[in-house]
């Protein structure tokens, strides 16, 4: 099993969700996160006081899938989250050692 962790632009979340569910994935976890990469922060001005924020708001999407689906899923997320501008985000793929569905006690890929 693989954990796909994608850091994307917040307004791309709906596109990513649609792309993921189109592949038959039935669940995902989404968090609002902040961070920085190559994208510069924004400047905010309140009554003339300028603040440059170097942390940019992003959305983190986490999906666990079986190994066979992983590469297609990564590609689907990439296409859905792509705008071509700096700050589109990153996708990480991690190995998952174990999975367990709390309600039934099922383990492994059947728990996904």
């Amino acid at each position, binding site marked *: 099993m693989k954990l796909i962790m994608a850091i994307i632009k917040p307004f791309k979340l709906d596109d990513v969700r649609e792309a993921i569910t189109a592949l038959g994935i039935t669940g995902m976890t989404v968090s609002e996160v902040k961070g920085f990469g190559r994208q510069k922060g924004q400047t905010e001005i*309140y009554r003339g*006081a300028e*603040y440059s924020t170097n942390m940019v708001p992003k959305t983190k999407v986490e999906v666990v899938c079986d190994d066979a689906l992983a590469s297609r899923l990564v590609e689907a997320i990439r296409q859905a989250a792509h705008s071509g501008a700096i700050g589109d985000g990153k996708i990480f793929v991690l190995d998952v050692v174990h999975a367990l569905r709390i309600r039934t006690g099922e383990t492994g890929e059947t728990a996904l």
Partner: protein
Amino acid sequence: MTGARIMTGMAAGAGLCLLVAAPAWAQAAPAAAAPVPDPGNNAWMMTATVLVLMMILPGLALFYGGLTRAKNMLATMTQISAVAALAMLIWVTYGYGLAFGPEGNAFISWGKFFLRDVTPASTAATFTHAVISEYVFVAFQMTFAAITIALVLGGVVERMKFSAIMVFAAIWLTIVYFPIAHMVWEGRGLFFTMGALDFAGGTVVHINAGVAALVAAVMLGKRKGYPSEPMPPHSLTLTMVGTGLLWVGWFGFNAGSALEANGSAALAMINTFVATAAAGLAWMLTERVMGHKGSALGFCSGIIAGLVAVTPAAGNAGPFGAIMLGAVASVTCFVFVAKVKPALGYDDSLDAFGIHGVGGIVGAIGTGLVYAPWLGGPGGADYAIGHQLVTQAAAVATTIVISAIGTAIAITIARALTGLRVAPDIELEGLDLGEHGERAYN
């Protein structure tokens, strides 16, 4: 409509000396009926009074609260509410007596402490032959004292102890607000007899509160991390809501200062619309000219600057004079808040001086201009603009001096009694938890 109109146009307490004499007439000649309040005027003044309360709660509390950081939201709103409540109690105990008592001179009055001799039948004079119930007048003026001390807090939020704020408020009202209110609004008062034009309290409320906020902010010191650390407003949504409530409530403040539901109140009402509208847009336009985006906070700040500036001019200007005044005050406040304050480096946290002080001064001086008939004002053909401007400037300067000295004394006493500032760890953690044991948002 010249000299006499200047006298009456300025003050919400005109002819209070008449009021003093009223019970005596009643005893001497019971047959000569004492003037009876017109129910319409009374009803309007009761409405105006609660509108001013709405400016404080929740108007100013939300406006200021939204501008602070989330960790200080409740503390800011609680401070505003508590000083307003304290001002009400002090007002009926001795504040009304010190401002509008039967005995007195140009600087202070006394008598009517604990509202002695005020009854449902007693009346307060207006600017015409009409009267309103004295309890209504007492309550209307009470809300002015309450909002003025609440405005001062804009300079000191996010770091001043709650106990220090309460001590400061009690002393400041006593040695600064009541004397200046007397000088502006009472028939024997210094500014009143000078003929200063101040329809709804530009000097006593806004210049006074603005200067006090500046002096208190400097004596208190900057917030930890100011100005290097970002301190953006935590909710401009709530600030916008507060701005709207302030604007609506301000009709009670300005149009109510006519003390009757008459044409003077109507003039104050239209001016409170249009001067404010001009000021809100002027601030955004200034932002654009300076190369920034027109902002929501800019709009709100302009609205307040316009309301402040039109306060002394509300019944003393034509609508287009008021529009000019609002726009000029807005641009001046922008320059002060966005350029002058950062250059000088003091931490008037929510710009109580930058908007109420500066806008109040522009409004007070500008009222002397827009009163002129050739600018659409209600002044007579023989209106002496130069002489009036000198009078306006003298009233402004006197207010600044008394406010600055009195604030320094009040802060010094509060420092001796309470320590003034919260401990550094409380300031970092936020005053909501440190001073009140609560969080605004869970």
